[in-house]
């Protein structure tokens, strides 16, 4: 059995650009004794990925490492390249984000597993037949059918690719498995399956697990110990329960607080953040009876290669004044299509009825354009939603110009930016997106929508691509917009916690249908439909190894 330890590790990227050398990791010491599980949490840029890459000496040439990385007591720096290669995968293997591009797209996945075996042909798998049998054995251990061995990565779903990555990591019976965001981009239900599967396999074999993630809840669900990193430094380290439930450091508190505890009354309609948006009205708006946007029997079909597929089937929805409605579902449930059809961006089946303020949705281009002033949509990724070459002012003013609103342009833009709490607005007008942080970009996008004075905002995963600490800020902004302006919002999300944080009502979607729809408190506290229950159960909770114990 092998221990992995980082001793005063600092990693610096040499850079020829004017930014100079960049310190990615500063003086980090961590221990992973044999058989232990350790999670490293941190937001993007915290240096966590850089740190684990040093465990197998996989850093790029431009990186300089100070301190020592010890694997089984041996300093990795002292090994020559051949020895390093022997260590890789045989002693420590890595599970990358399989859902992305960690598998070679043009080779069969079975062959990619066998390749690991051929390179570390221990005495056990000496012949091609034995290696093939081992590969099939691994596939069955990760609950994949043998037939998947001849599949190419693009033929597998994200969860299946992640299983292949795990099978590959287990192939040579390593002592340590390093998992790099193993469930990012997977749905909650799949995430739960992958995590519990990984945790069980590791526990059975006594393999030690080092896992990194931006998601504290995911880590605490699997790992016994947790380390929190920020700006390359270790902020807090300790047993999962301690770190999550009784955090010492301010930053950890903020991270832990960002995870909504569904059912916790304190976070209901109150996203936790250090910078809550201001409610300026003495009597904030609350959800009214007046229906603003309504869909009856809404169905959408697509022509695909295997014929017509129905993405949305017979959905009934009503959005009231000053209501926040969360539509929750896994990817592929048709929720984005639903949002696009409510906006008139998507062709719907003829018998679907869509109405805005009591009138059917216009069909003609010109009338549709006017309608778009009333209903605005905010897309998933704020960085992608802004043209990198255009300033904040240009981004916000775009809607006004497109809509032909010429008067009081400057006031409208500044007003919208301030409503989106990007203050003082004048300071940001000429910034370009790359000078702004993720949260600020999202505020600019929201301001762009607000400039048109809409009555309804439709937001597609508005916080999914933001760091946890920014999440609360943006969510509280949505609440403030509702309270201050009486705006209605329909928020598309995969995150039940978001619904708990800000929504009045929630609709749960599965395969294009709404399976449960109602008041948030009722639905989330007492779910009726089996699917809602399954979703709720899959949400990782802060606290020690909940997923492992569930098994």
């Amino acid at each position, binding site marked *: 059995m092998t221990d992995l330890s980082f001793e005063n590790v600092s990693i610096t990227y040499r850079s020829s650009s004017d*930014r100079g050398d*960049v*310190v*990615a990791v500063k003086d980090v010491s961590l221990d992973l004794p044999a058989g232990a599980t350790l999670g490293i949490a941190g937001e993007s*840029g915290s240096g966590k*990925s*850089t740190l684990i890459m040093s465990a197998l000496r*996989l*850093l*790029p040439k431009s990186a300089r490492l100070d301190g020592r990385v010890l694997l089984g007591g041996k300093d990795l720096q002292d090994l020559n390249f051949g020895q390093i290669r022997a260590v890789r995968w045989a002693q420590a293997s890595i599970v990358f984000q399989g859902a992305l591009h*960690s598998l070679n797209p043009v080779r069969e996945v079975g062959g990619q597993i066998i390749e690991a075996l051929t390179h570390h042909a221990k005495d056990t798998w000496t012949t091609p037949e034995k290696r093939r049998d081992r590969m099939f054995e691994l596939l069955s251990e990760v609950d994949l059918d043998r037939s998947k061995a001849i599949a190419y990565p693009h033929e597998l779903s994200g969860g299946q690719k992640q299983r292949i990555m795990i099978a590959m990591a287990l192939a040579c019976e390593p002592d340590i498995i390093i998992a*790099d965001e193993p469930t990012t981009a997977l749905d909650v239900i799949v995430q739960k399956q992958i995590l519990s599967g990984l945790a069980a396999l590791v526990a059975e074999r006594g393999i030690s697990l080092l896992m990194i993630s931006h998601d504290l809840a995911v880590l605490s669900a699997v790992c016994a110990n947790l380390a929190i990193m920020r*700006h390359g430094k270790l902020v807090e380290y300790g047993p999962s329960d301690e770190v999550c439930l009784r955090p010492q450091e301010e930053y950890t508190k903020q991270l832990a607080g960002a995870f909504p505890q569904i059912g916790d009354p304190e976070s209901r309609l109150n996203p936790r953040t250090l910078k809550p948006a201001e409610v300026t009205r003495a009597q904030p708006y609350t959800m009214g009876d007046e229906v603003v946007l309504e869909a009856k029997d809404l169905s959408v079909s697509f022509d695909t290669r295997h014929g017509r597929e129905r993405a949305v089937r017979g959905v009934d929805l009503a959005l009231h004044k000053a209501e926040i409605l969360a539509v929750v579902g896994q990817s592929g449930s048709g929720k984005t299509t639903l949002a696009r059809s409510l906006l008139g*961006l998507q062709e719907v089946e003829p018998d679907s009825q869509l109405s805005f303020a009591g009138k059917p949705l216009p069909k003609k*281009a010109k009338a549709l354009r*006017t309608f*778009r*002033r009333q209903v*605005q*949509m905010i*897309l*998933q990724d704020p960085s992608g*939603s*802004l*043209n*990198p*070459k255009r*300033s904040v002012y240009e981004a916000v003013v*775009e*809607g006004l110009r*497109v809509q032909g609103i010429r008067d009081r342009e*400057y*006031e*409208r*833009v*500044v*007003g*919208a930016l*301030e*409503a989106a709490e990007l*203050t*003082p*607005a*004048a*300071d*940001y*007008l*000429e910034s*370009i997106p*790359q*000078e*702004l*942080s*993720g949260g*600020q970009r999202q505020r600019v996008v929201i301001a*762009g929508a*607000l*400039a048109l*004075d809409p009555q309804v905002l439709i937001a597609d995963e508005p916080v999914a691509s933001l760091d946890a600490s920014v999440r609360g800020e943006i969510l509280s902004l949505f609440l403030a917009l509702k309270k*201050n302006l009486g705006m209605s919002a329909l928020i598309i999300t995969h995150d039940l916690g978001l619904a708990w944080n800000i929504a009045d009502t929630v609709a749960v979607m599965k395969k294009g249908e709404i399976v449960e729809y109602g008041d948030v408190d009722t639905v989330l506290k007492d779910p009726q439909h089996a699917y809602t229950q399954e979703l709720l159960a899959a949400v990782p909770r802060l606290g020690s190894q909940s997923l492992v114990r569930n098994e």
Partner: protein
Amino acid sequence: MPANTPAEAAPGKPSGAGSPSNGSDPRGSDPRGSAPVVDGAKLVRERRLNNAKKNWALFRSDIPAMVGAVVLLFFIVIAVVAPLIAPESMLDVTKQLDVPRYAPPSLEHPLGTDDLGREMWVRILWGARVSILVGVAATVMSMVIGTIMGLAAGHFTGLFGGIIMRIVDFFIVLPSLLLAIVLSSVLERGVFTIVVAIGLTSWASTARIVRSQTLSVESRLYIERARILGAGHRHILFRHLLPSVMPLVLANTTLTVGGAIIAESTLSFLGLGDTSKESWGTILKNSMDVSAATSGYWWYVLTPGIAILLVVLAFTMVGRALEAIINPALRSR
């Protein structure tokens, strides 16, 4: 796995004019003074100036590109001042009767003379005018066509997009030289014909680059956002797509000039050029007509070719440097 970039996005806070407003009313109804003074224009200017300085520094640090730029400048200058250095009469065969034919390079005849006793250096000088002019003019033509076709092919879907696509594909598949031969052999001989023949047939590679860039920009969320704001084709094409392909097109222009100069010389060599005008291709054709290559008149073959090589290489070096400057900007999105 790309390493995490450790630098947190630093919120740039350029200080603009205009005092911070206290009101958070998005209707903007609070009176902030009638004529808003947005000093943003100045900031934008500064940003552009800084960018230009940075790019110039990058360009200067690229030695081959600087050499290329100097070579280009040299050839452009000699092309412009050719009539001053060497009067056109020096090309008149009837006035060269006392000059030896096929004189090898010497002090008296620096680049040698041709079969009619004309000085090679004079011919090269005058040839630069037509060769560079044709190269640049044909490139401009092909860039304009290529950009329009590429944008249309990338942006429009449905029947119209499909038709554009087929046309682009046709021109991509068929080598432009073949089409240019056909065009210039049926049109009247002349410099203009050569320009048209090259320009009309060589835009496909530009269209292809533009199409691929358009498709990639088209799939970005800010285009979707513009649609949500109610934007039509015109807005998306001219406000988002065109600005995003222009840098690529400009870098490609420099690269394409080289190709166009080679195409000009090839057409002239095949006898499709304007025989009354000096161009490097025409000189090479003349040398071929008198079998200079096999008869030992090496200077007759070598000099125009080296001129072409230098100019094309120079354009290519400059173009590559421009591309390298533009590319990180394209990728950092």
